[in-house]
């Protein structure tokens, strides 16, 4: 591993902490709502049984919430510790959603969380219910702001580069907030969290039914979770479609990697299942896949809603395509290098008080500033993200998402028909589907983040330029410390959670 550079270790550490953090967040996002729905039924009906059910799921939520906080605090500070150049170059835009997240969402979550757990006998029923809903809203609001920030990294809008400060500065907050990429990302991500939480409740309930215990509790919980799950998974499908269309418009290289599309074509097929040919490169004539099943015209139809729409492949996106007005990466890199040199000239002229030279350099800079980020790249092929992880992660996510819709529909049907207890094969399948939910979650982020490489900010700032200038050994040390600590905490969390599930709701 000695050959890995500072940027590799910085990325590895961020990926490690983000992947761990995301094991816990989606469950919190969804379970807070499921618990709030259950408590609403309790308050409406006055049925103590629902209170007990609410308390049980709330107990599991608390175990998950704690480790979510533990793994979350590092995420915010890592932008400073490991990505300090990034913090300066885009902090003026990126910092704002993070601060708003804290003021608007974190305080709401943490304040009402205490009421939710310790307020049962201290505040009125309605105030308690309000607190539970506020925790759900707070945690989802928190997701909104961090996803606005992430959406901006995928599609930077609402800012302008200021050559005097040598950074990007926000010029329109509303453009940042209502960035189409951010909106679809937010909706897709939170709905995927609701899907996971529904899956969690169904899997745990299925386990009880397999063990022939807590039957009434399990069936009632499944009814709430399957109804909620079916609704949100269908919504998740539409937001996923919207997200993919945004990728097509704003990150065509990522789309090409997601589909393993090396050469552009009109009426492009979508790959339903495929095994990539590892020998394939944009410069050779190897076939793209060893095996594939495609849906004809699927990609063109889904992205542009036109059967014969043109979708560029990696080759065109790297080498350019005049017919379709695609500039080559080489040309972009050249323009980027001109912009970088002009910026340096500008700063130098300013310092020496040579206003005429500064003006000239500024004009040159502004002409090429759109490609500033490309100036940091060394070769044109650097713009291609790792194709295999992006492709497989995308197809895993989509495939599993489809399975969850079927699972929720079947669960709802069997519960409503009161046949769920007899369908033991289905109960087993439901239990086994829980890890698949986590795989789908992590796959989604792999598509989003690996598919964005080499950029920290799409087309603007490559990861290599965004890191803190510290020794690689310092990051290696903290990487292994995080790996050890988070793994230990994860084991503790799983042990505690499974023990609480085994104890069951009777003790709640």
């Amino acid at each position: 591993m000695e050959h890995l550079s500072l940027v590799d270790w910085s990325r590895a550490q961020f990926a490690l902490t983000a992947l761990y953090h995301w094991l816990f967040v989606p469950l919190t996002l969804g379970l807070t709502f499921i618990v709030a729905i259950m408590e609403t039924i309790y308050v409406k009906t006055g049925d103590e049984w629902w209170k007990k059910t609410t308390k049980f799921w709330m107990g599991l939520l608390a175990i998950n919430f704690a480790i979510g906080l533990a793994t979350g605090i590092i995420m915010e500070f890592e932008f400073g510790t490991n990505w300090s150049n990034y913090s300066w170059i885009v902090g003026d835009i990126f910092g704002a959603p993070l601060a708003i997240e804290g003021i608007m969402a974190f305080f709401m979550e943490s304040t009402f969380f205490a009421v939710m757990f310790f307020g049962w006998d201290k505040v009125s029923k309605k105030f308690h219910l309000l607190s539970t809903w506020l925790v759900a809203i707070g945690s989802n609001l928190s997701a909104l702001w961090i996803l606005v920030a992430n959406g901006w990294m995928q599609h930077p809008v609402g800012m302008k580069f200021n050559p005097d400060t040598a950074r990007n500065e926000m010029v329109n907050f509303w453009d940042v907030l209502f960035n189409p990429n951010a909106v679809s990302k937010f909706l897709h991500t939170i709905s995927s969290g609701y899907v996971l939480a529904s899956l969690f409740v169904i899997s745990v309930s299925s386990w009880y039914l397999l063990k022939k215990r807590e039957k009434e509790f399990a069936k009632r919980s499944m009814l709430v979770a399957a109804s909620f799950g079916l609704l949100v998974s269908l919504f998740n499908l539409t937001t996923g479609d919207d997200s993919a269309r945004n990728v097509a418009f704003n990150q065509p290289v990522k789309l090409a990697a997601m589909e393993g599309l090396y050469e552009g074509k009109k009426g492009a097929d979508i790959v339903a299942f495929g095994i990539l040919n590892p020998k394939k490169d944009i410069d050779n004539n190897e076939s793209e896949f060893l095996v594939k099943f495609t849906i004809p015209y699927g990609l063109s139809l889904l992205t542009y809603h036109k059967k014969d729409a043109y979708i560029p492949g990696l080759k065109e996106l790297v080498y350019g395509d005049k017919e379709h007005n695609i500039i080559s990466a080489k040309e972009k890199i050249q323009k980027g290098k001109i912009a970088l040199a002009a910026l340096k000239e500008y700063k130098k002229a300013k310092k020496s008080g040579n206003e005429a030279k500064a003006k000239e350099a500024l004009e040159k800079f502004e002409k090429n500033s759109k490609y500033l980020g490309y100036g940091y790249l060394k070769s044109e092929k650097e713009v291609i993200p790792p194709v295999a992880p992006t492709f497989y992660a995308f197809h895993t996510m989509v495939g599993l998402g489809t399975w969850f819709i079927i699972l929720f529909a079947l669960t709802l049907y069997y519960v409503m028909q009161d046949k769920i207890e007899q369908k033991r094969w289905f109960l087993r399948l439901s239990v086994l589907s829980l890890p698949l939910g986590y795989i789908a979650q992590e796959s989604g982020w792999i598509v989003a983040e690996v598919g964005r490489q080499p950029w920290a900010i799409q087309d603007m700032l490559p990861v290599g330029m965004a890191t803190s200038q510290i020794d690689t050994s310092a990051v290696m040390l903290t990487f292994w410390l995080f790996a050890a600590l988070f793994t230990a905490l994860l084991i503790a969390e799983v042990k505690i959670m499974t023990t609480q599930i085994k104890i069951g709701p009777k003790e709640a």
Partner: protein
Amino acid sequence: MFEKLSYLQLQEYWWFLVGLLGALFVFMTFVQGGQSMLHRVGKSEIQRDIIVNALGRKWELTFTSLVVFGGALFAAFPLFYATSFGGAYYVWMAILFCFIIQAVAYEYRKKPNNLFGERVYEAFLFINGTLGIILIGVALGTLFTGGNFVINEMNLSRWTTKTYGLEALLNFFNIAFGLMLFFVARVLGALFFIKSIDQKDIIKRSRTILRYESFIFLILFIYVVSAILTMDGYNYDPVTKVVNIESMKYLHNFLAMPIVSAMFILGAILFVIGIALGSLSKNENGIFYSGVGVVLVVLAIFLILGYNHTAYYPSLVDIQSSLTIENSSGSKYTLVTMSYVSLMVPFVVAYIVVVWRALSSKKIDEKEIKQDPHHY
């Protein structure tokens, strides 16, 4: 409304808000102070359970205050965020590790089959309450003593020593600052126990701790304040922005800003009144006096650090790289936008107060812990 303010006024407003958040965080470290004396005050399991549950209803607010403090710094003063966090790497990472282990400790400590056992989670709380706070104090101390960084013409920062912030631990002032913060946290923790717990042994031990440790705090406080008043500071020219060293800069700042001086003195008096009430009388409200006091003192310290043309983060390597509220802030547009968001702060404080009062209406006692199966 905020658009009418000048860029400098916005920078001052945001420095005030960052200072206020920092001050509220220091007040909330009564949680850490309480954790650090868990075994000193709680001699039996039930007593420790009472303490953990009393603190457990507040710890997330402290945690959130720290996170929001970081977020506000990122948004308002991104160059500080980039320079300090990306440079003093080991110190900040050590602080973060101390807070990561705290976040699971409350929830997991009493849970069956929790992998490490109750004592390890209590050790997590102790580490967070001692090392975590001392290191935060050391990091804050560097706002006076400076760091080894340079900033290039593109405003990108680089640390010049391979110890990445650990060198701050060799500075006596920084250590004294960290220890002072630690004893502030313990004093506040003891006062918090007196106010919120109904268990005579815990109260008795808390009052004893107050009596002894407030002296240690006072010695450290006197040293730190004398050092601040006599040390050199980094001044910058408001027109040319050139930074130079000024003898007794912080004393001059106190004299130039009488309101800040009054705030500092009033805060210190209130803090001492709180200690006196807690240690010498049966009064339970010392936490309010000391709480308000500590907020005023810490806020005043932030104001003398950043106002009156002072570099709040001096560079020991290249004096002109020193950070000021003017050269390290976000753009005017971002500060205006964030200022509108800051209007939500009173609303946030209001609901925190309402919830706090609702949950603290009755003191925690043994009966409550024994009856609640969900206790920490």
